[in-house]
């Protein structure tokens, strides 16, 4: 039995003034200091007694942390503390990266998405993070600020294990950079929860497809999965199949089978591994069919 505290345990709250100050705090107190943005995850974990930081450093007010910028020549820059709603509602995101807006909108509830941040969703490195598969197929980069300045981590290298990310000590996420997407692309994020509203993903599947004459099928697909492995993953074998031969119902099915094979889910209180695997196949198939239909309509 794990009874949570009836309230939040004691800690100090610091509103950060500069990035350097944050880095300094993180280096000096690696275990006692935690970063704070929307709080939707960390406060729950502290109440549950799973985290006991002495200090929360609020970094969401630092310059650029909630900025959304779109440059038609470069792509999208998302401040790490941008709320899910801000992302989902931003015109540049809706027009250019609808897949990201779709994924952000599947998170919990409207009021929670006003506080939950994209950066927080990614930094938790939960296998179930809804924006993670989108970030993977969008081939985004995570921009960390640390003792030696800024560095860029490709999304595919960011997730190392449940709760484990590629940050070095003293680093914090400041931005997510998403490159311009291939011309004519379409995407979908499909999520299965236990109920229709706001559940954590039992399975999440993001698919991005676009015309590419350099491959045999004339189309490239990127497929990423949430909640079915220790980290969010790309289903590379499925992607290879889709690039390698002309797209037919059979190809889509083979790719979905490959996505299922890529999944290594666990049995837990939410679902069995067996069901999750089957759902990877079903949702991948569905997402691929929908994206394929959109691609065909245009070409």
């Amino acid at each position: 039995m794990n009874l949570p505290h009836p309230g939040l345990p004691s800690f100090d709250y610091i509103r950060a003034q500069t990035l350097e100050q944050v880095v300094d705090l993180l280096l000096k107190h690696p275990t006692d200091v935690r970063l704070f943005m929307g709080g939707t995850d960390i406060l729950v974990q502290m109440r549950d007694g799973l985290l006991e930081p002495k200090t929360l450093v609020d970094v969401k007010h630092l310059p650029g942390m909630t900025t959304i910028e779109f440059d038609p020549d470069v792509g999208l820059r998302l401040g790490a503390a941008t709320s899910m709603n801000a992302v989902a509602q931003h015109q540049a995101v809706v027009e250019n990266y609808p897949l990201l807006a779709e994924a952000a909108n599947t998170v919990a509830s409207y009021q929670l998405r006003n506080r939950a941040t994209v950066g927080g969703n990614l930094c938790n490195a939960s296998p179930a993070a809804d924006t993670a598969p989108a970030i993977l197929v969008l081939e985004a980069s995570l921009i960390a600020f640390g003792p030696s300045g800024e560095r860029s981590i490709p999304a595919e290298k960011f997730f190392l294990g449940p709760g484990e990310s590629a940050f070095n000590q003293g680093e914090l996420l400041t931005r997510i950079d998403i490159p311009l997407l291939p011309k004519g692309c379409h995407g979908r994020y499909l999520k299965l929860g236990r109920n229709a509203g706001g559940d954590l993903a039992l399975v999440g599947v993001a698919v991005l497809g676009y015309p590419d004459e350099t491959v045999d099928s004339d189309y490239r697909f990127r497929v990423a999965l949430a909640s079915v492995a220790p980290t969010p993953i790309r289903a590379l074998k499925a992607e290879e199949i889709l690039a390698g031969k002309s797209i037919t119902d059979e190809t889509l099915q083979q790719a979905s089978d490959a996505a299922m094979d890529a999944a290594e889910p666990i049995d837990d209180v939410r679902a069995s591994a067996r069901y999750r695997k089957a759902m990877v196949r079903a949702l991948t198939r569905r997402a691929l069919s929908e994206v394929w239909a959109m691609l065909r309509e245009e070409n």
Partner: protein
Amino acid sequence: MDAVSKSHVFPSPIGESVTRVDALEKVTGEAKFTDDLQFGAGLLYGQVVRSPHPHAIIKRVDVSRALALPGVRAAVTGEDSDDHIGLYLKDRYIFCRDRVRFVGDPVAGVIAVSESIADEACRLVEVEYEVLEPVLDPLQGVQEGAPLLHPDLGEYVVADFIDPKPGTNIANHFKVRKGDVEAAWSKCDVIVECDFRVPHVQHVPLETHVAVARVDQTGKIILWSSSQSPFAQRNLIAEALNMSQSDIRVIAPYVGGGFGSKAGVSVEGTAVVMARKVPGHPVKMRLTREEEFYCAFVRQGLIARTKVGAKSDGEILAMKTEYYWDAGAYTEYGVNITRASGYSSTGPYRIPNVHADSYCVYTNHPVGGPMRGFGMPEIHWGIEQIMDMVADELGMDKVAFRLKNCLRGGDKNVTGMTMHPIGLAECIEKASKAINWGEKAPASAPHKRRGKGLAIMWKAPAMPPNAGSSAWVRFNEDATVSLGIGGQEIGQGSFTVATQMAAATLGVPLDWIHISAPVDTKYSPYEWQTVASRLTWSMGNAIVQAAEDARRQILDIVAAYWDEDPNDLDVKDGQVISFKSENAIPLKDMVVYGLPLPDDQGWHGGPIIGHGNFMPTYITSLDNETGQGQRAVVHYTTGCQAVDLEVDTETGQIHLLRVASAFDVGKAINPDQVRAQMEGGVVQGASTAILECLQLKDGVPQNPSFTDYRIATSVDIPDEIIPIIVEVPQDDGPWGARGVGEHPMVPTAPAIANAVAAALGVRILEMPMTPEKVFLAIQEKLGEA
């Protein structure tokens, strides 16, 4: 009631959908719930140390380190529990004395100046346990040699209609032996036998349990609690602490959802025991959502073994049932669920040969308690599926099968009681028609399958034979009325219906009636409990009597004043009028100050106060061996739900398109409120049917939070709910009314299961019908084929 026999013209506002009397308070944030009350600087907080083991002996409890923590005022342990407590079977201590029986059982309590200090101190309490083998399944629990949870079962105080078996884990065994089942099987053309399972679910009121107790320097107790049962709480706590009921006062503000979980006594007892240690200080005890899942009542689990036989023409000849209730660590309330499910074990069917055994089995699981439907949703899960299976075997339409076999007024039911007039057949016809029963409709996509199903139900108020109600009406100077009741407003609309009944009987405008709330056992009239869908009927009768009493006094006074016959007078719209003389006088001119006698002869009358009470007087017991008797219950409310749904065969998700819900409520005092109960019941029923299960592993809840115990949200509800009111009057109900609060969630789960079976040809025998379970069942069927 007179009103029924006189005519079917009902006095205003009976039968009118007036707006709720509590709505304005509730939409403005003005409505006060227990945790909203302000207690000032003296308030202390209690927190409880709970057993991490499902079954263990307490070897040692040491609170000294907790007491040493600054801010801690006192601590309690099992030694502070005086006597056993419990509604029908006194089988628990407020704080465990020698043994813990479920994960979450209270072992010690700490009182401190803040909730967080109390919490920290609880973590300093040292408890040494000797872990015992637990009972984790009722089938294990009934076996000889199973670990015994309550070796003292034979010593417990028990209601005379409960039959515990000392030396076993069986806290109650209820039997029905009617006709000759064994002989009947050979006459059946079709026999179906099947087991069904229902897991533990929880009520999930949005307001968790909260209680504040204050013991004064003279030892008297005031308890503020979120409670469906202020009077039962007072009584049970008085008995457990060997106190007079007069020395305990329970004040019960609005309740943020009950569904049975706030009936009887649960966490309130811990608050009282802790408050005794710090006289003069109110002590607040509120459960976190997680504690609510661990420690508040759960709905009992059920394993149902069922066998039904019928003739080829569709007539049901025999039914055999064994119910094994997973009743949890304490069965003080669950023993009567076991009984109710036994005497209702056939469902609303006419069956001449019945053999039923209902066993209440102690397990080291969370405490089973009353939950909306009181055993009926659980047993109808199996009853209504097996009836469909029988109809399938017979090749008979399921509506026709039910119309052929369902109970009607005048039939003898399972316990030998003659059924009062009921509108069940009408409910079946109307609900099935509302979803176009018999018409095939296409699914919305190739990978979806559509199906229709229905289920019928019955439920009687399950309570002691002599559970009573009382009420008073008191006029104020301006002729507004204070209406005293002891029944609670838990969302079901009781205050509104009570107001309508008083206004109609007194002949005053609705907005002149003001409920004297919150219910306060010091001032409010007695009410047994707000459970069993009994208030509209039982409390309603008391209100009508009280209002008639007041009205009679008024008419007598005015008749004397006018020198007329009271029978020629009436009260209309706040005035006394005479049909004969056409005299009229506003009530405000006489309800408090009386009226002068002619010729300056003094005064007549005085402040008007009317009293009423009601208690059923006709309930008889049932034979211990056969379960037969004249009248075991006051009445049955019956109904039918029909479901039109589709299933996504690729994911197993169920989408409810339409649910028609028809119930015979006798008379809808407020039709809109009745429909609201039906809608809420359908959604709660569907939620338990598809989503809900308190997952227990070795006795430990695995999903004790909203993250993993999902309930239906706004996007999970059926596309359309069609509530249908049927009115076949109840002879002793006010204007013919009977209750309908619980009933609408009873048939929902089996109706969905039957529709799923129609869609897929797959039967789910264990709730809930999660997408995973449905999907895997489809796979299994494909594998077989």
